[in-house]
């Protein structure tokens, strides 16, 4: 099943997995059960390189409740980004290894690589998807 739960399950194993259409080869991230290109549902899991670039980003100062619980908010911003992967598809994810308090210094186009962020969430420890400037 190419569901959100399955995608999050892979993340816990520190794998960035998309879905690849077995019929036409199109790669989807987030994964999805049905290929809009060729109308097939013969999907298979496909691990992504995790390398890409920042297409857009922000530094959030007024945070949602779940990020406030992680200690972020007014006075302690965090960065999050739209990342375009080398394989084509894009994804929204946290952007780490940058100074969210100095957003002027973060650049669109920055090359990034995947990072798996261990955070304390309501249900205990979990791994969230993130990217950091490529080394």
């Amino acid at each position, binding site marked *: 099943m190419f569901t959100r739960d399955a995608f999050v399950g892979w993340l816990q194993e520190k794998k960035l997995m998309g879905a690849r259409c077995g019929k036409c080869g199109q790669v989807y991230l987030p994964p999805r059960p049905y290929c809009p290109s060729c109308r097939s549902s013969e999907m298979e899991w496909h691990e992504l390189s995790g390398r890409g670039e920042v297409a857009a980003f*922000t530094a959030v100062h007024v945070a949602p409740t779940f990020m406030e619980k992680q200690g972020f908010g007014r006075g302690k911003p965090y960065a*999050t*980004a739209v990342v375009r992967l080398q394989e084509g598809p894009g994804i929204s994810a946290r952007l780490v290894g940058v100074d969210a308090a100095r957003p002027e210094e973060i650049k*669109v186009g920055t090359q990034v690589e995947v990072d798996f962020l261990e955070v304390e969430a309501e249900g205990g420890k979990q791994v969230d998807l993130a990217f950091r400037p490529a080394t």
Partner: protein
Amino acid sequence: MGKLARGVAVVGAGVSRFGAFKEKTSRDLFVESFQDMVNSVDKGFDPGEIEALYLGNFSSDLFEGQGHTAPIMAEWAGIIPAAATRLEDACASGGVALRQGILAVASGAYDLVLVGGVEKMNNLPTEKVTDTLAAASDTLYEASAGFTFPGLYAAIATAYMARYGITPEYFMRVGIKNHNNGKLNPKAQFQTTIRDLLEGRKAKLAAQGKPVPDWQDELDFLRDDSANPVVAWPMRLFDCSPITDGAACLLLVSEEMATRFTDRPVYIIGSGQASDYPLHTRSDLTSLGSARLAARQAYEMAGVTPRDIKVAEVHDCFTVAEVVATEDLGFFAPGEGARAAAEGRTARSGDRPINTSGGLKAKGHPVGASGVAQAVEVFLQLRGEAGARQVPGANLGLTHNVGATGGTCTVHIYERR
């Protein structure tokens, strides 16, 4: 997009006062706008003749714990047993309600349709409103990455700034302009200019014997973190539309019966609607594909071009959104919207007046009502009833209403004949 089977006109329009009203519920706000609409119908009519209500509402569920809102509004307006349907496409809920009202009249099913929009947002504390608005994004793959709603538009702003080499000050000028307009709108949430706010803040600090900042102009004020804190960089407080309670109503009739209600009907000559992916699945983040397609549909149906439009209400939920909108609508070339705003071309006195009402920024943004309230402003402008903010000779107007970051967009074109 086919040709509509028959034409549709707006013969009445009303809006509640926009603001934060602790004691008022959705139904109270709706009745206020309904009565304003009834009073606007020049030759009068019996509201009991209304056959259907199309109601735009984003989330009375989350804001007030109330679903099935449409029949409640119909009851409070006294139009039971008219068919009452709620439409939801986030902040474009009002725009899609208008579009369905148009299609319902065009289909022949109804001659007399009420289009409404309502949102009561100030029941919840601000944190909860932030969470609730994030529900308009893809919660599984956008909100979960820490994107708030301002954050998504802030991301669009960074892509735009990078591509066209501009600074956040360009966006700030949109806010200044919309506050200048809102000051002239007696229904607006903020009837003050940024200059007023700046002077007021200075006077207050002086009266308190505190140090008075050396703000030379509005931009000085807006660049100051203490006066204008960052919400999601580069979007600051004065780049964001406020949390608003409000409602709006339009009375639509089939074209052939319009003059039964008024000698000055406003005809809807173009309508378009399209959808799009979340940001991360788009190839271009400096333009909304749904807006470009909805605009093309509306222009084609209307047989007009962008340069024919005299007044436009566009979806400035954030200042960057207005800049992008003016490009998506074909008013300015890609990358030129920011400069056009900075040059004053979109001011009331400019060659392309945008958001004479004050826009969502100053008039306020009760999300499900905004798309309808935009049409109310165009109705007033085309009839020469916009008071101090009237644009002379406005005979062709446009509204542009966006859901979330363009997951939905509707565009409508209106004509006074």
